[in-house]
């Protein structure tokens, strides 16, 4: 079932006030909407790029640090410039946006500004009415000018338990791709769980700071009741991305536990199982079925106490399984981590 409304929310550049938007995000989800949350301190370019890539119905901006007239206007103008003026724009900012400001902003193309004290129900009603019945586009990728002949891009599937650092790891890999290959284009298909009977918070973009780039195309999908860490929409997106003139495609599942590999073999060229160094006992390790089938195993959080033991244990566990699997230890949160460098080299070759 498709969500009633799909939104992108963010806090403007040079503004860290994310408390209101965090609360509002939860309300939206509670009312069945899918919310792609971009985080705080985000430029108009980042917001518009993400909104278009994510195919949202509207953008919600929470602005507390002034400069809102210019900022909202910049978002509206950029949408128009990118031929995406059908994406709505609304927002608020506690007491910092005056009625006079709001009038100017609405004249410049903002659909609605909410003032302090607006009941949540009123905001939900507005969003449903204004954006609820839109025709949503299907799979659509950007077209790049003057690209080489079509070759299917290699697809890397990344899975593992929640909190292992999959998102950070992908972002660090993207940074290396962007830096070392000035023409590289990257696609990311990310998944987050839908809450039963409700919407979904798609929050990976807020953490993926380096992936907010014109050379990166990212789409966040909600599982919408599908088990196994992927979405009913996954298949068409993977197909399109592989044929979409990218140099590499990353597919990240939601955090999943010990079950079998979620990827279909024909989709991914390489599968990576990411786990944290603090997985618990050796017995736990024996139960992880994905260790037998992943092409590579990344033991992340190598800075934790006991990480060395963890890498050794995982190595032994894998030796008993299939041949040719590799174990790499990383500290993805560390800038220029040599482990991530090694992983990058492996993937590129």
């Amino acid at each position, binding site marked *: 079932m498709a969500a009633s409304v799909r939104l992108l929310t963010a806090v403007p550049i040079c503004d860290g006030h994310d408390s209101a938007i965090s609360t509002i995000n939860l309300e939206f989800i509670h009312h069945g909407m899918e919310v792609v949350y971009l985080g705080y301190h985000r*430029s108009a370019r980042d917001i518009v790029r993400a909104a278009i890539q994510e195919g949202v119905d509207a953008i919600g901006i929470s602005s507390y640090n002034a*400069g809102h007239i210019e900022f909202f206007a910049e978002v509206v103008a950029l949408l128009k410039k990118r031929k995406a003026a059908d994406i709505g724009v609304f927002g608020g900012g506690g007491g910092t946006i*005056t009625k006079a400001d709001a009038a100017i902003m609405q004249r410049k193309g903002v659909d609605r500004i909410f003032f302090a004290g607006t009941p949540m129900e009123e905001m939900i009603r507005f969003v449903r009415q204004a954006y609820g019945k839109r025709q949503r586009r299907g799979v659509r990728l950007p077209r790049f000018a003057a690209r080489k002949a079509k070759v299917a891009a290699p697809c890397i599937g990344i899975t593992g338990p929640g909190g292992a650092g999959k998102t950070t790891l992908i972002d660090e890999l993207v940074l290396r791709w962007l830096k070392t290959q000035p023409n590289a284009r990257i696609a990311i298909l990310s998944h987050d769980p839908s809450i039963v009977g409700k919407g979904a918070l798609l929050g990976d973009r807020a*953490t993926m700071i380096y992936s907010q780039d014109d050379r990166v195309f990212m789409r966040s999908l909600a599982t919408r009741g599908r088990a196994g860490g992927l979405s009913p929409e996954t298949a068409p997106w993977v197909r399109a991305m592989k044929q979409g003139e990218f140099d590499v495609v990353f597919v990240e599942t939601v955090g999943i536990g010990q079950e079998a590999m979620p990827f279909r073999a024909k989709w991914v060229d390489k599968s990576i199982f990411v786990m944290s160094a603090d997985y618990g006992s050796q017995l736990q390790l024996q139960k992880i079925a994905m260790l037998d089938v992943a092409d590579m195993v990344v033991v992340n959080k190598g800075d934790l106490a006991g990480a060395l033991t963890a890498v050794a244990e995982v190595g032994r566990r894998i030796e008993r399984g299939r041949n040719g699997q590799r174990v790499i230890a990383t500290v993805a949160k560390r800038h220029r981590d040599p482990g991530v460098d090694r992983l990058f080299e492996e993937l590129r070759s």
Partner: protein
Amino acid sequence: MSALARVCDSLEAQARFVEEQIHRARDEPKFRAGLLKRWKAIRASIATVKTPTGLALPSLALPTSTDPGEIARYLFGEGFPGEFPFVNSIYREMYLPAAGGRTPEEPTRLFAGLGLAEDTNERFHYLTKHQRSIRLSTAFDGPTLYGLDSDADGVFGKIGEGGVAIDTVEDMERLYDRFSLGDERLSVSMTINGPAPILLAMYVAAARRRFGAKAVGKLRGTVQADILKEVQAQNEIIFPLEASLRFLADMVAHTTEHLPRWYPISISGYHIGEAGATPVQQAAYTLSNGFTYVELFRQHGLAVDRFGPRLSFFLDCGLDIEYVALARVCRKLWAIGMRDVFGAGEAAQRFKLHTQTSGRSLIALGFKNNLTRTAIELFLAYLNSTNSCHSNSADEPFTTPSEEYVRLAANAQSILLEETGLFRHTMNLFTGSPGMRILEEALEKAILEEFRTIDRLGGVLAATEQRYQRSQIQGAAHLYEQQTGDGTRPMIGLNRYPNSTESFLEPKVLRTPRSRKQLQADRLRKFKHRHRQKSGRALDELTRVVESGGNVFTELLKTVECCSLGQITGRLFDVVGRFRPSV
């Protein structure tokens, strides 16, 4: 055992020690005799003052009980003002004239920042026109807080909004123009965190340019530079935590050596409180962050008695009952932890406190009621013997404060301290009541529980990474919203008596004109152009120092001479990466 666990143990040991002294005072004649002799001498040393109406009063209110146990409880448990564990105050005289009759420095600190450097400069001169001692507190605009230049992509609308725009050392010179940097009576506070070392380097360089190298050693003031609370609450961190902490430690190493009167960090509960934390959470996170910095600086080879006296704190003061005694408890916990866990001497045991009244307690609706709210919070702040204080302007919920309301907020402090007799004649007039004691005990117990929880999570850094403090603060904020919504937390004019206040008038809002913003962007471009030959080399040198493990702050003092804020952060992003938020 983690430092925080040791702090908890030392607090419990201290409580046992106090109980023991109470018993000895009651049961051991020799001990009692010594104690009573000391008590008599203390009582005799208290001067008598006369109020304007002619009433004679002691200049310090001491407990009136003659029970030796109660006297021991006071002397060992609370401490005479200026004595361990400093519950009453960190100095013997707070707002009273000292023995020699010297008038104390005014504790009023006035926060300002708007438009370009010269606009804020003008505001500073206006605010300090009548002040004996000049204490400036600087707010920066969004781009500066995030280490971006005014000509960065997409920030134009934010230039000079909500604070002053600073891009270069030249802006810094303009900001404090016609103030005598290095003067004994001047102190400058800067509310800056992520890029704090760069801004302080600009300030030092500006002082050196204007007043020569000799002025540098005399500079007084503080930068906030509290990175941990940024991750936990305020989101103004720009580099990864590890790199941020290293830059901070380098700055602290440099200032303790070369700017002996500077406070290089202001460990802040204010933003934790404003983000929604309960007073107990605010105190627990602030103190535990403080202990974490002490551990960190010691790991960097700094001696606790060198940097310890240069740490200062910044707390929120709202209308909840906890604020009657919150800072009193903080002073005690800090002193005990510093003495017993880190072996610090007296100077480093003193919890130097700046307080600001709560911005969150103010509302736009019927905003003149905010004058009353702030006045009550001010009273609570001084009741807690704060060392300096900022009072919010009533118009703050919707605009950069206008001159009128800034003036009224400052006047409120003068009225409280100079007009009323509350803090002018007798020190500790309100302390020692049964209610205050009950409150202190309850607060201490609750804060200790928080310490234990953080310790169980692996200490402050581990808990921060697990987003513990952050999610606790969010939970408290959510509850607060709920309570204002359903009226269990009454707010006059908002959820109670809404018609009894004036209807909401569209207030006058201060904005920075487009032409001023353009001026800032233009002169930044000129600065960059003028220094284009040198800036690349300076940034390479900075990179080398970061990578070789040298003192980054010392190098920044050179870098800022020819590089802008954004050029420096841009290079540092390449070298150490960017902060990655977690959702």
